[in-house]
């Protein structure tokens, strides 16, 4: 009995002492005071020294894109450090290219603020807010792609440019132990501020897409931040060429809504690539756009149509269609959305067809 008591006493004293020591150390050695962060040379915020830059910015409601939640595994939360911040850390090497390193690009989730620091971030990020909309509809577009409509609560409004994206939060659920954010392009019209549509494909073992496909149902509240992205509709008089595959249709839909809202007379062609018939969706909606817009044309193309069906549309990969169709010299600008591989091959074709590189806008879905 006595031995048990001595054990307990000594052990509690010992751990208590260590805890005291560590708390003391955190208060003295780990205390860097309040640090000033200067953003884009004009805004100044204050944050707890020793914390990561990302958490300091999030506290001030400045949302830097981050998919992993600050673990240093997605490489999205890049900021450019003008002064302060110290040397780049080994944990950042994998995500920051040598060219970016020259410019002072750092991962804000790894950078601990221990001295006054000046950073620059894209101006748009100041508009990024956190939203808590409710799911009002989920429909299956294909066996692997769902269409979701979210409605914002009273007082929350989103304004974005056609083509931008939001980050949807996947909470912890059975089989997933971490909270992550994933980027999805907005498919709805930028004129609607209290409603938002997303098109989400199921990725094998994807944390967020599994959450959406298997666990999310109508009436659930979700958390998202946005809008983000420098891929969006540009005003000009050039002919619009849009190319997408699968869920890449989302930002294109938003751009079409924008054109419709403006009663635009710009000539626009949308090539949509798919493998089989069942991978096609929103054909009705595209018909509506074709009748609503004065000069819009939707061209779906199948690379492997089933033999038993009588597919009358285009055949082959989208790049083949582009090779064939873009014969006439014409001022064009292109909006591309799809896998990095697909975009790389399309960009090659477009440059070859005489579209200047600065007029080719794309969003790589990876």
């Amino acid at each position, binding site marked *: 009995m006595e*031995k048990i008591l*001595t*054990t307990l006493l*000594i*052990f509690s004293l*010992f*751990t208590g002492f*260590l805890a005291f*020591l*560590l708390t003391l*150390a*955190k208060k003295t*050695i*780990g205390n860097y005071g309040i640090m000033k962060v200067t953003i884009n040379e004009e805004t100044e915020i204050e944050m707890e020294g020793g914390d990561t830059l990302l958490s300091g910015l999030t506290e001030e409601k400045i949302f830097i894109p981050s998919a992993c939640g600050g673990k240093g595994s997605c490489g999205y939360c890049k900021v450019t450090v003008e002064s302060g911040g*110290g*040397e780049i*850390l*080994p*944990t950042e090497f994998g995500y920051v290219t040598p060219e970016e390193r020259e410019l002072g690009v750092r991962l804000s989730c790894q950078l601990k603020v221990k001295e006054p620091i000046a950073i620059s971030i894209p101006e748009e990020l100041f508009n990024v807010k956190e939203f808590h909309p409710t799911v009002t509809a989920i429909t299956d577009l294909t066996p692997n792609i769902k269409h979701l409509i979210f409605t914002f609560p009273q007082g929350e409004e989103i304004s974005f440019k056609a083509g931008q994206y939001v980050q949807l939060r996947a909470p912890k659920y059975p089989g997933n132990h971490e909270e992550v954010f994933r980027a999805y392009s907005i498919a709805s019209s930028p004129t609607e501020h209290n409603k938002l549509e997303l098109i989400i494909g199921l990725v094998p073992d994807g944390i967020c897409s599994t959450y959406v496909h298997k666990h999310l149902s109508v009436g659930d509240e979700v958390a998202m931040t946005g809008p983000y992205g420098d891929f969006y509709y540009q005003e000009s008089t050039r002919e619009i060429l849009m190319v997408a595959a699968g869920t890449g249709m989302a930002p294109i839909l938003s751009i079409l809504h924008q054109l419709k809202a403006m009663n635009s007379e710009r000539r626009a062609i949308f090539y949509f690539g798919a493998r089989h018939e069942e991978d096609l969706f929103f054909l009705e909606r595209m018909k509506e756009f074709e009748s609503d817009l004065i000069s819009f044309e939707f061209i779906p193309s199948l690379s492997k149509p089933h033999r038993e069906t009588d597919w009358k549309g285009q055949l082959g990969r989208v790049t083949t269609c582009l090779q064939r169709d873009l014969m006439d010299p014409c001022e064009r600008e292109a909006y591309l959305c799809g896998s990095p591989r697909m975009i790389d091959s399309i960009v090659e074709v477009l440059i070859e067809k005489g579209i200047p590189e600065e007029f080719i806008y794309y969003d790589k879905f990876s």
Partner: protein
Amino acid sequence: MIVNPFVVFFAAIFTNNMIFSNFLGMCSFIAVSSDIKTSIGLGQAVTFVLAITAPINYLLYHYVLVPFGLEYLRYIVFIVSIAAFVQLVEMIVERSFPALYQSLGIFLPLITVNCAILGVSLFMTIRNYNLITSTLYGLGSGLGWMLAIVALAGIKKRMKMSAVPEGLQGPGITLIITGIMALAFIGFSGIVQIS
């Protein structure tokens, strides 16, 4: 029996190497040995922590646990003290030696759970080393561990181009290499020896 501290120091590096004679600290040995630079970083961090925790645990054992007759608590006490002191050391290094923190930074918290660290603390109590011997034993074991992981990283680099049978790729071939390296290290055993 009184052992010469320097004999213990060299024995810990060569003949009684933590990895090759005790197979302790294997997980990071296998996982972090793909790049020479990183393995040097991890090796430095392990050496650093071993040299600090060995004397601390020595004092804890002989001045706290033994007087109260609580030797059986040493496992848990050693682990807790290692974890706490690694944290403390990390904070101090981060504040005062930014350059060192730069190179060790991410590895320091990792080695809290390296079993070679606990192994050293346990061996030194079992073998009844005194304070100086224990400290040198800690330092030597760390250097030995570093020698082993850097050597493995060097071998792995040369093996990148060789055709390893599919079933052996990764940890499989690494364990075989480790075994052969351990055999090679037996060659040192004539020089010095500790129990």
